[in-house]
């Protein structure tokens, strides 16, 4: 049963969906506070390269090295996000252009490749990587084995993150405040909230999530450093936020759906079906489906006016509100 195509695609969809999920959760937090950050791809790549560096350089036991690597990746992602935050919150720059600048600065032809070359990371496989946590006998259970018990700790941690973000936004005081900041910064300001501080904090946390998403690639999926290894996952994560209507739980569903599309070419290639389409076609599926899904929700969302934080992408200037 566990070799059935559907089971494999779902299990692999969760693997490939996990970086999308982390990236989308981070972007969701930033967007809920009103900051659109199109730099996810760049932040992911820097997180990937720095996380990989940490694993290669810290000579400690596997679990400590991996934990440290995730920490380093999160910090690196947040550091890149800080540039965006400073430009758009303090200096009131255009959020779209600044986000694109982040991706160009940190992306394939920029800082991530610079660091990868300079730290000489490209040649070797990861010294430690994330493994399945549950015993082999559990993983052999039919259907639930590979899907639920065959995953690495990063997957289970992402489920906790979804729950925490969902509870944070709907059940806690600061979470509700963030939504106020994103929907009506002027009202939030009048309530005595520090709009800039909220936006800074959530943009940075969003960057940290993107960094972890990158580390998921370089320490679990690939697991090595290849320049540009995310191949557009950051952009799919941004699109995911749109078609999950800015809700963390829907992000989970969307991420696994797109994870399944992303994993399909690898699964088909490994199995060598005679009916398989050319690999280029199955590789383009996640991108094409992103467009299709985006069209479906954007017309609907436009009609229902439901979803996007009202002040998304707009700088808040107290004197000019």
């Amino acid at each position: 049963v566990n070799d059935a195509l559907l089971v494999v695609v779902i299990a692999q969809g969760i693997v490939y969906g996990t970086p999308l999920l982390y990236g989308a959760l981070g972007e969701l937090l930033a967007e809920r506070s009103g900051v659109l950050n199109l730099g996810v791809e760049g932040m992911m790549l820097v997180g990937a390269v720095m996380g990989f560096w940490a694993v290669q350089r810290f000579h400690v036991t596997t679990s400590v090295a991996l934990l440290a690597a995730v920490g380093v990746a999160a910090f690196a992602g947040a550091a890149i996000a800080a540039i965006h935050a400073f430009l758009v919150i303090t200096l009131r720059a255009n959020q779209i252009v600044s986000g694109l600048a982040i991706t160009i600065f940190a992306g394939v032809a920029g800082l991530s490749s610079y660091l990868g070359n300079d730290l000489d990371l490209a040649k070797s496989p990861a010294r430690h990587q994330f493994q399945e946590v549950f015993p082999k006998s559990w993983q052999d259970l039919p259907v639930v084995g590979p899907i639920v018990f065959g995953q690495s700790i990063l997957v289970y941690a992402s489920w906790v993150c979804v729950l925490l973000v969902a509870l944070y936004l709907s059940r806690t005081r600061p979470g509700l405040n963030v939504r106020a900041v994103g929907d009506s910064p002027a009202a939030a300001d009048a309530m005595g909230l520090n709009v800039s501080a909220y936006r800074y904090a959530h943009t940075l946390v969003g960057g940290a999530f993107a960094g972890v998403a990158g580390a998921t690639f370089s320490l679990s999926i690939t697991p090595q450093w290849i320049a540009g290894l995310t191949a557009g996952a950051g952009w799919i994560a941004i699109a995911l936020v749109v078609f999950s209507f800015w809700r963390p739980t829907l992000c989970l569903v969307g991420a696994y759906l797109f994870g399944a599309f992303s994993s399909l070419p690898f699964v088909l290639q490994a199995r060598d079906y005679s009916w398989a389409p050319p690999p280029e076609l199955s590789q383009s599926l996640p991108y094409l489906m992103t467009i299709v899904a985006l069209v479906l929700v954007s017309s609907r969302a436009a009609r229902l006016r439901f979803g996007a934080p009202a002040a998304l992408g707009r700088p808040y200037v107290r004197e000019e509100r």
Partner: protein
Amino acid sequence: VIRIERRLDQPRWLSLVVPVVSIAVAFLFATIVLLATHHPPLQTFRRLFQAAFLDNGALTETIVSATPLAFTGLCAAVAFRMNLFNIGGEGQLYAGAITGATVGLLVGGAPSPVVIVAMMLAGAAGGALLAAIPGVLRAFFSTSEIIVSLMLNYVVALIIDYLIFGSHSYLRDSSGFEASVFPQGKTLPDSATWPSWTIQGLVIPLGALVAVGVAFAVWFLYARTRFGFEVQVIGDSARAGRYAGMRTRRKIVAVMCLSGAIAGLGGASQDGDFRHQLDPRGLTQANYGYTGIVVAALARYNPFAVLLVAFLLGGLQNAGYTLQGADFPNGLVGVIQGLLLFCVLGGELFIRYRVRIERRRSPVTEAA
């Protein structure tokens, strides 16, 4: 306390001084990056500058790099002016390269000028058709053109790969043993080679002149025609445009097609001027489309400034290729481009706003 207040009038000297200072600050940051990674900054910059502009034949190579950047920069500038963020210049350039090469092979028997014009038209049409997808989706379904145009970049890159590596298409060279081991595009006939002119050792390809022509056309369109005026009104406020009776949806599609057509023309110029075949690896590794966004943003969407910035960044990119090696940090070019963009973006604040540092009133005076 630091206070930021809007300037009532913007002195002219500021719009000159601020960009210059921004660029200086960007290089200061680049210095820090180099120092932090143990590279000698001054020597690195000097080598960059020499390889870009001074060395023998460097200027010719810089124009080779600058020509596609001028096209993709104009592509981005045309759309960004209307607040349409077409970041699909990359894919639209590939699309133009595909259609341009196809037509070049198809009509190769015709006289050279006919072939060249046909390639230009085909390239522009290919880019425009691809850009029409995000344009129509944006106009009629209010789908984010940013994500759609970006996703299409990946799709077209895969299509190019399929045409040359994954199938036995018309564009793939299928003659001889070598071609079956190392797949590559079919070489275009001589009639499809675009002319170039040599002035004192400096080679100017036809594509570079076409780019200059396009810049003039874009300037004329936006500064002197009704269409351009309406586009800018809609860009500033779509609602105001609609109330004034402008057809906003048509304008969105038209501007996206125009933007894509310019990038597609750049793709055709890649075939005709430089590569003489459909060259998947060369095109997809060059990042012309993404760098074009940097060019447009640094030029503040002014078509003539795009030409100048494309020349400068082309030099940077050319130097990056020339110096690529063990002792020259790879990826530095992208880092410098990103830093330039950050600093120029951040610097705009100082044109629009005044920053005042006031001393915090001491508690004594406050009590009194």
